[in-house]
């Protein structure tokens, strides 16, 4: 379903909907997704959603690291980083009623095809978030902030498709 990230979906409002039976996610002021079940509520902190997104992005071949050199500079834009833990650096999440929007900043290995890496990241993040949290991902915005070149050794992601 949510394959594309091109459409900007309006931020879901958290008001009402929480009382409907079954599984309804509603936004609380605590920065956590809330899942109402028959015998209690399940909340998932936004930082957990961000962590899952970060792990999913890092798995993609060609992704060297998250955040890039200027991650802190755009940190304000990416926003919603609760407790800037290392594993959620470069990841911003916005979790609403049943849905989530993700922003990810990447450093990609040169000469990977950036659009392919980006769409792989998008696919993997959507798959992982939807499986792990039950949230529907409405958009994944991928920003390639930096390139890594062979030679400046970092956590190299191994071989990469080269034409």
């Amino acid at each position: 379903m949510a394959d594309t990230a091109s459409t900007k979906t309006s931020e879901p409002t958290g008001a009402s909907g929480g009382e409907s039976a079954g599984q309804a996610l509603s936004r609380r002021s605590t920065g956590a997704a809330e899942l109402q079940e028959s015998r209690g509520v399940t909340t998932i902190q936004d930082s957990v959603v961000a962590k899952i997104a970060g792990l999913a992005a890092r798995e993609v071949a060609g992704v060297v690291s998250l955040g890039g050199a200027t991650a802190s500079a755009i940190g304000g834009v990416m926003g919603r980083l609760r407790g800037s833990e290392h594993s959620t650096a470069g990841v911003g999440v916005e979790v609403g009623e049943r849905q989530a929007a993700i922003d990810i900043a990447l450093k990609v290995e040169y000469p990977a095809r950036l659009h392919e890496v980006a769409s792989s990241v998008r696919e993997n993040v959507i798959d992982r978030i939807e499986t792990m949290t039950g949230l529907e991902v409405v958009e994944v915005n991928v920003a390639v902030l930096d390139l890594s070149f062979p030679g400046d050794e970092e956590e190299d992601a191994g071989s990469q498709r080269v034409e």
Partner: protein
Amino acid sequence: MTLTTAAAEIAAAAAEIAAAATGLPTVARLYHGAVGEIATYGGGRRVGGVRIRPDSPLQIDVHIVARYGRPLPEIATSVRTEIAHRLRDRGPALVDAVINVHIADMEDPQVPT
């Protein structure tokens, strides 16, 4: 339904709840809060990560750090089920309690870089 259980009994129930949750392979540990503020006190002891609120029905809050792997709603459900199972003989107030599972954090699958 009113809560008439003494503080020591509440703490004992909280300990049982904590044991139930941490006994699950999908739960890494309980989350005690940034400064350890999430806790139940009673009978001279402190049980971190669990709060029991005297409401009607009784509200149990369990704060967990999940292990990476299983879907989080599934982990929450198993926590809820396990706690309910452990509390089944502890009186009607606890049996009817609402169990809220808060996934505060998730452990990384590998050593954090």
